[in-house]
């Protein structure tokens, strides 16, 4: 686990004071409360604004994602957490009207600099989507897709090994090793999602973004995925968007609470769910809205 990264000189985390907010109105909300900056940051986001045409979806978000941590992003639907996640590997580029401002860096490298190749970025920052989306190919081909396009395997044996390893890491190997060449779309929903995870880790990304990966799955499949996330967190940095607070509580180290496009609070998960700093967070986790 020796990552050759040029650790950015960290500015001392800004002291933020909890401001009493009596209403749920956030338009006057300026700063995020809690520990939104980390010392061993893998990714750093500063003053990020995202617009769809004229509509602003993300307002001035600044947060760090630390190395090998699992950070959960929660919030009511439409709060912009998915949009924010998608700007971390520039998937928002595929939406014509979407515009990202501010600074997003990984290992100190600006992700939105014109010099950066988005292909390389996405190989380093993998993504798992809300609905399992295996390609209409065989299980093997699904996992081999990334290594093939990036030219990671030098031989067939290499490729076989990568596929097996990835499927093993995704906890799917035992279930599918007999039918690697059957269509990936024939698997159950939970298996499909784990296949998508296997597909993502086959290129050994540094960060994995997960956009509500369990929302389309039943509880048993969800439990398996959550287990898997925990295992993966030993090797990967993971950012997960979820609308299930229990899930955030179970899998994440830190939790970020989004509200109407603003990042309200970031704190260690335990703290967020036991004694949230901000009133809005508290209102959300106690079920006053969401």
């Amino acid at each position: 686990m020796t990552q050759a990264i040029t650790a950015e000189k960290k500015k001392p985390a800004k002291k933020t004071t909890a401001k009493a907010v009596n209403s749920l109105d956030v338009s006057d909300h300026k700063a995020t409360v809690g520990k939104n900056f980390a010392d061993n940051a893998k990714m750093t986001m500063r003053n990020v604004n995202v617009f769809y045409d004229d509509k602003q979806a993300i307002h001035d978000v600044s947060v760090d994602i630390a190395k090998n941590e699992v950070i959960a992003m929660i919030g009511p639907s439409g709060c912009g957490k998915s949009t924010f996640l998608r700007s971390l590997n520039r998937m928002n580029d595929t939406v014509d009207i979407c515009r990202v401002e501010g600074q997003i860096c990984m290992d100190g490298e600006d992700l939105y600099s014109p010099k950066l190749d988005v292909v390389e970025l996405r190989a380093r920052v993998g993504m798992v989507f809300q609905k399992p989306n295996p390609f209409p190919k065989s299980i093997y081909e699904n996992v081999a897709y990334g290594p093939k396009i990036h030219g990671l395997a030098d031989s067939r044996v290499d490729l076989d090994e990568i596929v097996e390893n990835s499927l093993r890491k995704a906890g799917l190997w035992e279930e599918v090793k007999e039918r690697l060449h059957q269509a990936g779309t024939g698997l159950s929903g939970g298996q499909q999602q784990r296949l998508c995870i296997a597909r993502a880790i086959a290129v050994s990304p540094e960060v994995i973004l997960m956009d509500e990966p369990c929302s389309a799955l039943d509880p048993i499949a969800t439990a398996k995925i959550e287990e898997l996330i925990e295992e993966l967190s030993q090797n990967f940095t993971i950012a997960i968007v979820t609308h299930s607070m229990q899930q955030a509580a179970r899998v994440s180290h830190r939790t970020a609470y989004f509200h109407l496009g603003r990042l309200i609070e970031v704190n260690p998960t335990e703290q967020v769910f036991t004694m949230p700093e901000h009133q809005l967070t508290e209102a959300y986790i106690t079920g006053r809205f969401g």
Partner: protein
Amino acid sequence: MTEALNNLGKIKKSLSRRNRAERRFRWYGRMAVFIGLAAVMVLFTDIISKGQGAFRITYIELEVTYEQDRIGIQSLTDPEQLATGNWEALYKAALRNEFTEVSGRRDKRKLYGLISSGAGFDLKDRLLANPLLLGATENVWILADDDIDTYYKSWLDGEPYAARMSTKQLQWIDELHAQGKIRLQFNKNLFTRGDSREPEQAGIRGAVMGSLLTLLLTLLLSFPIGVSAAIYLEEFAPRNRWTDFIEVNINNLAAVPSIIFGLLGLAIFINFFHIPRSVPIVGGLVLTLMTLPTIIITSRAAIKSVPPSIREAALGMGASKYQVVLHHVLPLSLPGMLTGAIIGMAQALGESAPLLMIGMVAFIVDIPAGFSDPATVLPVQIFLWADSPERAFIEKTSAAIMVLLSFLIVMNTVAVWLRKRLERRW
């Protein structure tokens, strides 16, 4: 994480190759679109550049004396005399007066060849319209022969095409030009006359009328039948194999080559029912069968786009299924159906292959006035002219194509406009 590092190196190395491939692929796509658009451009430019000349035609000014005995008639009211009168003699004499030095039979024939062989009848019409001219002399602009027309136009454009001309004729035209007695005028024959073997006399009126009659019949038959079929399939048909069979049939008929419909028309309408060949009735029937699938398919799409909630609301009020259809579904889907009908009609207007089979390819001079008059249609007229050897027919063909295309453009524009204007978004 050496693995990741290792991978990163490999990915970085592959980047330039992959980005090149990406650019190449994008360029292929751009080229494909460009080629398609270029084809449209080339086609239109080609047709327009070939056909623009046809809207003007060469006339020669001659001093014509309407001498009674030269024509060989006693009165202007006896139709038999009018039919047998030697009307050509009028312009022939005028030509001889103009070029007094011409002698010898061959030269004279060349000289008469300057003028369209149908010009005598134009002079006759002129005289009949104004009987006082009998015995008088006037300067008349007379239609020139097609070879002269082709040459004169090409000569004006600076690239004379004199293949079918003799040196004497070239000389005469030079003389006429010097005296200002030859000029281009608007070619009204093109729009007022039927077909002719003489390119300068030929017009598209007959074909346009034929197309109009055929299309009218097609519309009258195919629209109600098509809409009824669509209503049945969308609103009433039970989900069973028979309905599936009907659907398969409709979809297949939409893709059956049009010439097969011609064979059907020939075997059924002409050989079995003994409807005469070459008439708009058969053409209309064949085109009806051909456009029905299009109309049914678009009408069904239009009916489908009416939300079920409207049907449920009406049914909930106690309306019968027919009342729902008649009062709600039909009015709401009518714009879509009309659009489909126009598209079907545009398709029928451009169709020619099946009409060749049922004899609408005959040479017909008279302008049809009814559904049972022999007729041809515009695209078939284009086919006939394109096949004619005379060079002057090339520009006539292109002009007819321009007319056909303008009809189609108007129809399609109306369809698009209708869809934009009336289509409701649910």
